[in-house]
């Protein structure tokens, strides 16, 4: 769509812009015309664009027309914190906000979902947790389409298949089986994952969107590496994995790395009552995967180093920046996938141009295309007198949130290194920034942990998880609010 005039480009908007953003863009643009501009063709165009995009019905008709005309199954949009850099003797930082959009498609693109729920039934799950989990499963089943497949595995130190793959239409049988899960035993996640992946493989993977959701409240002992290896194998077979931790016993860095290779989500469920909401949000869009297994091919010039990669949409998740590819996951539903990169550039002592390739590989199930590459690059000018331009607002907002998440990570690193004093100062700073951002609850949490750190020299396991996943969720919510209300 590059270069083409669309109603979106007239208003300077992305195709996911919220109705509020449409109105705002119109207001700013129309203000640039003098009071009596009715005869001005530019003004007429602006008015027309606004009238269509501001009417949900007309907008959706326009979107589907645009989708039919769009030649590419993915549209990539790159924003830079600066497109011109000064000549400098020191390294410089550059941020890139990359948004990958499916063209607007109609709902026919849906493929059935092959979902496996792998549920922890260790002794510690007894009571409320298991009760909420069971009712959550029932609700999940309600949300799926009749042609979707679901299987359920429960595990403790061993795994049992509670429900082999079955069409969601057989709801009563599924509910009956899930109700009979009883809590007992320890936590060996590998057993559960192995059984879960096995159940998914019983269904022809190529005809489905395959996803495994793990829910656990405990540490796994000794089998963490096997789990991670298994998740990588599964990812290679188009099986995505998401993982949810309940309570405060589970190992956060383990769950984070478990989902890395498939680009899935890992999150913290504070209260059993929230299980339902988390699972529902996760399965939303899973059946409508427009493109899967997206990877950014990391072919950066030698003087450009990737420092940090973080996914913002469809959910906030740190990405593994090492290796030759960054695994981005899937484009779910109608929404975009977006991520932020922090690049460190070696000193640029001469004027010139830096070209950073940003090719994205993806599988497009609807077109039977595998490893299709979408070429992109960012161009940066190095000049003695760069223009002083403010970085895009969305980008600044995302970096602000991300910076808080990382301050949080550094607190942990300092504590591990034994620098409790430094960690406490940092945590205090974080408290201030959270307050500034209006995140009162998280700020209180950070404050409580600062005091705890000062008096006891450590953080509470739960407080730490709340901060880590709380700041992470904050990034996601901020970006979602900015981006759209259309998913």
């Amino acid at each position, binding site marked *: 769509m590059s270069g083409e005039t669309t109603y979106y480009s007239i208003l*300077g908007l992305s195709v996911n812009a919220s109705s509020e953003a449409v109105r705002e863009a119109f207001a700013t643009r129309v*203000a*640039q015309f*003098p*009071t*009596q*501009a009715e*005869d*001005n063709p*530019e003004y007429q165009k602006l008015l027309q664009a606004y009238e269509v995009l501001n009417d949900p019905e007309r907008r959706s008709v326009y979107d589907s027309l645009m989708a039919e005309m769009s030649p590419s199954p993915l549209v990539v949009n790159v*924003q*830079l*914190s*600066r*497109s011109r*850099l*000064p000549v*400098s003797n*020191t*390294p*410089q*930082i*550059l*941020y890139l906000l990359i948004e990958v959009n499916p063209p607007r498609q109609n709902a026919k693109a849906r493929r059935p979902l092959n979902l496996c729920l792998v549920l922890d039934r260790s002794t510690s799950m007894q009571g409320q947790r298991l009760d909420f989990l069971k009712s959550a499963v029932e609700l999940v089943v309600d949300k799926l389409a009749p042609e979707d497949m679901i299987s359920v595995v429960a595990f403790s130190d061993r795994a049992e298949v509670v429900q082999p793959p079955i069409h969601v239409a057989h709801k009563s049988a599924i509910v009956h089986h899930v109700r009979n899960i009883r809590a007992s035993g320890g936590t060996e996640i590998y057993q559960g994952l192995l059984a879960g992946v096995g159940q998914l493989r019983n269904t022809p993977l190529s005809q489905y969107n395959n996803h495994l959701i793990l829910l656990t409240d405990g540490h796994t002992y000794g089998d963490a590496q096997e789990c991670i290896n298994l998740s990588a194998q599964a990812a290679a077979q188009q099986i995505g994995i998401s993982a949810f931790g309940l309570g405060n016993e589970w190992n956060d860095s383990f769950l984070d790395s478990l989902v890395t290779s498939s680009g899935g989500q890992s999150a913290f469920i504070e209260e059993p009552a929230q299980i339902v909401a988390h699972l529902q949000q996760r399965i939303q869009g899973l059946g409508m995967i427009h493109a899967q297994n997206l990877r950014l091919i990391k072919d950066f010039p030698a003087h450009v180093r990737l420092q940090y990669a973080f996914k913002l949409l469809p959910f906030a998740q740190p990405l593994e920046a090492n290796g030759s590819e960054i695994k981005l996951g899937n484009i779910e539903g109608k929404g975009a996938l977006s991520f932020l990169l922090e690049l*460190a550039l070696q000193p640029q002592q001469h004027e010139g141009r830096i070209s950073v390739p940003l090719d994205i590989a993806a599988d497009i199930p609807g077109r039977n295309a595998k490893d299709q590459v979408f070429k992109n690059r960012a161009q940066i000018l190095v000049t003695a*007198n760069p*223009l*002083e*331009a*403010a*970085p*895009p*607002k969305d980008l*600044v907002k995302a*970096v*602000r949130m991300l*910076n*808080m998440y*990382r*301050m949080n990570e*550094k607190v942990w690193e300092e504590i591990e290194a034994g620098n409790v004093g430094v960690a406490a100062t*940092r945590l205090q*700073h*974080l408290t*201030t*920034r959270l307050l500034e951002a209006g995140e009162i609850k998280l700020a209180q949490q950070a404050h409580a942990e600062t005091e705890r750190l000062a008096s006891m020299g450590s953080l509470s396991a739960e407080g730490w998880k709340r901060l880590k996943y709380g700041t992470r969720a904050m990034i996601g919510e901020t970006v979602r609010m900015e981006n759209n209300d259309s998913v």
Partner: protein
Amino acid sequence: MIQCKECGATQYEGALFCSECGRFLMEDGRAATDVLPFSDYGHRPPPPPPDDFRLEALPEAKNITFVIPHSRHRRVIGLAGQIRVGRSGSETDDFPELDLTDENGAELGVSRVHATIQWSNHGLVLIDLESTNGTLLNNYRLPPKRPYPLRSGDEIRFGDLLIHVFFE
């Protein structure tokens, strides 16, 4: 390298937030348009805008010369449609026809979208587009979004940047 004003930590150029204390590193100078102290010229009421004003298509191409005294630069711009005055930004790929970025525009208080010059039934008109520091025409401060006829030889101040306009 840059230094965080709040905690003193050294940060790479281009960093947006201090990695140590989280402070926004760009709020003064670079990113925002500087707000200048209100200048002393022209508090006289501006002439009323003409009643029967309307924009018109330009009968024939017209060259307009802008002279910027402080840099001694001279810019000749062909008027077709409109001449937007401002600074280029990264938010849009849109460059104003009269781009004052390289004239030290940010420091002199020129807004990104500052003003526009268009053709009307009263000839050339200048319209301030609600700029941060305002537009002065021959020392009259223009109310925003109202058209004022321009004559060759007029003196315009965009923020604190003085420009002379000449045309046939």
